[in-house]
């Protein structure tokens, strides 16, 4: 039953809304004008032309190369890539670990349930910063120096400066290997579906389903063999003070990814568990009555329905993880915050522009993640008779 309003009331409400909007915009405008005038009067440089100036500092960890003429803009890009890398790896590991822990908590084995519950309770209740400090100061910094590193067969070395592993010397090797890995995953997926179809027809799993797990490793190896003309593997060697060669992962990076993944995984496992429990037990019973194994009924019946409940809080956790990666500033890992709002702020002194830029980047990052998750949510809900989100 709609409430009847007079034309006069409607005009009044519009009038007030427009007035408040104008007041808001003019307040913002006044603040902005005040800011610009003040900066100019005090002789403080303003504007974004520092982005084109030579930066002059180095980064402890960078995915792309740079030289001494690199501008602030290039350093920012590298710092942004670092943040994206940490967030990406953190999201993947946290989801995997969270899924495993959730399934462990739901299993029939009481020991598994107990271990999973303890994991969740301990890691959820300690602040992330403390967990980060624990991994960085209490664990990784206590490792021995390079000259007394732990070594695995003389190929992998662990010390308090880095985790050094052999890695192809050619920079183009990494994307090719990644491509091989993805191709292997896709092939494995189709192999699995074919195997399941055969099982439904014949009643038992054909033997080659084991191959579907090995494909993601076999295909890159195949690529390596085929294209290995200029693929030399570089091995880490102790030269002087540190190791050189191979891939060096600094303890700041390792502890950040570790802390973020383990912490967020505790929350994600609870979300997944809640989602699975939200699906009525009748679904599971009906699936098993139809002859589906427990694993298949979970995968085909329960989890897809649980996704509807899981995705919104899951996307919040992904956003939290991305923003929490800014704690890198506490342990000297060159991420967005440390480079923009730390090093660059100190060198140029332009606090307003740099803070604004940093916040804008985080906002865009978070909005992209939410957008992708909302799309996924809409897709999975489509088949289940419910609207988008």
């Amino acid at each position, binding site marked *: 039953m709609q409430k009847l309003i007079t034309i006069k009331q409607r005009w009044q409400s519009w009038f007030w809304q427009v007035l408040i909007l104008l007041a808001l915009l003019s307040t913002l405008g006044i603040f902005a004008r005040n800011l610009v005038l003040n900066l100019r009067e005090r002789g403080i440089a303003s504007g974004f032309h520092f982005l084109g100036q030579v930066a002059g500092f180095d980064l402890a960890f960078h995915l792309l190369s740079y030289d001494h003429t690199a501008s602030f803009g290039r350093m920012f890009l590298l710092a942004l890539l670092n943040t994206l890398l940490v967030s990406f790896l953190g999201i993947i590991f946290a989801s995997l670990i969270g899924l495993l822990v959730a399934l462990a908590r739901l299993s029939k084995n009481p020991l598994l349930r107990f271990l999973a519950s303890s994991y969740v309770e301990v890691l959820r209740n300690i602040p992330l910063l403390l967990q980060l400090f624990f991994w960085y100061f209490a664990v990784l*910094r206590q490792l021995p120096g390079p000259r007394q590193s732990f070594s695995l067969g003389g190929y992998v070395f662990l010390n*308090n400066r880095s985790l050094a592993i052999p890695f192809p010397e050619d920079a183009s090797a990494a994307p090719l290997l990644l491509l091989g890995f993805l191709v292997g995953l896709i092939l494995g997926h189709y192999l699995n579906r074919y195997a399941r179809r055969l099982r439904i027809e014949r009643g038992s799993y054909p033997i080659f389903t084991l191959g579907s797990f090995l494909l993601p490793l076999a295909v890159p190896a195949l690529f390596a063999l085929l294209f290995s003309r200029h693929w030399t593997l570089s091995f880490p060697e102790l030269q002087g003070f540190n190791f050189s060669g191979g891939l060096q992962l600094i303890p700041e990076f390792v502890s950040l990814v570790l802390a973020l993944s383990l912490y967020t995984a505790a929350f994600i496992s609870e979300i997944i568990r809640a989602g699975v429990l939200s699906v009525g037990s009748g679904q599971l019973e009906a699936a098993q009555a139809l002859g589906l194994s427990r694993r298949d009924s979970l995968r085909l019946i329960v989890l897809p329905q649980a996704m509807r409940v899981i995705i919104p809080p899951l996307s919040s956790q992904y956003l939290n993880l991305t923003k929490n990666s800014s704690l890198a500033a506490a342990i*000297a890992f060159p991420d967005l915050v440390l480079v923009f709002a730390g090093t660059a702020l100190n060198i140029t002194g332009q606090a307003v522009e740099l803070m604004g830029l940093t916040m804008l980047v985080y906002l865009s990052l978070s909005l992209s993640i939410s957008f992708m998750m909302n799309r996924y949510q809409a897709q999975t809900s489509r088949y289940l008779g419910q609207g988008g989100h």
Partner: protein
Amino acid sequence: MKSFWLGILGFAAIFIYTHAQADTLGEITKRGYIKCGVSQGLAGFSSPDKTGAWRGLDVDFCRALAAATLGDANKVKFTALSAKERFTALQSGEIDILSRNTSWTIVRDASLGVDFVGVIYYDGQGFLVSKKAGVKTAKELNGASICVNLGTTTELNLADYFRSRNLTYKLVTFEKNDEVVAAYDAGRCDAMSSDRSGLYADRSKLKKPDEHIILPETISKEPLGPVVRHGDNRWADIARWTLFALLEAEELKVNSHNLDQLRSSTNPSIRRLLGFEGDLGKNFGLKPDWALQIIKQIGNYQEIYDRHLGKDSPLNIARGQNALWNEGGLQYPMPFR
């Protein structure tokens, strides 16, 4: 409805924009104390002692400023600032003067809206390494991990030094100096780089100070001095001439102990400096005995230096470049006339 119109009036009031030279001296006199920005703990320059009172060269400069302007060296409030927030605090007015071992560079002078009023300590960047590394010069540091303070001129100079000699290094940066020292002591890096005076101070904080040496190279110029913000030339003058007063007193051999005897001195320079003749302070709005108060309550540059960095302190750094111009150093007070 009435509150609505009051709100509109309030918005309009923001448009009234007053433009005037700030009067820092007037504000300080009214407030009763100086707001001084110092470091978060650098022995010899500004660090809290066992009772929590601030001590150091930079601290004494601020106290000298208080003695000159307010007549009492204790009327100072110290704010500990990290390297990241020091300029923002000065620009925003949170502090009146930044006395925080800050290097005078062209970028800072030109683009931050601040002015450096002098050099209180001529320094340079050096390296601290462990004796066990067996390194004798900085050129042997190829491939080493080096810990530095985030975003300071140290980080930039390090990049320049290694690049120009085609050497490589692994950078480890931290925001606080304490974190840098802790990382170096734990073995996270092979060497630590900072201003040499800071290295002497930091070495004393290590677990086994005698096992570390400071390499002989000085790879940059780091003239450390106090900083004020744009907008008050008189305040900048007062700060500048306070520093010169400390140096001039040393040059004229005036110190905190012989002040009373000097009342009967016939040396015109001494009489002018201490206000027995003429009134140099009037031009800045200070009392005639402004310089006398500085020397009486704090001492001259030599006394301050010896107390915090020199022979009476655990650091025992030689005067070197910080001696007076007529004793082989670079400190040159301008004429007091």
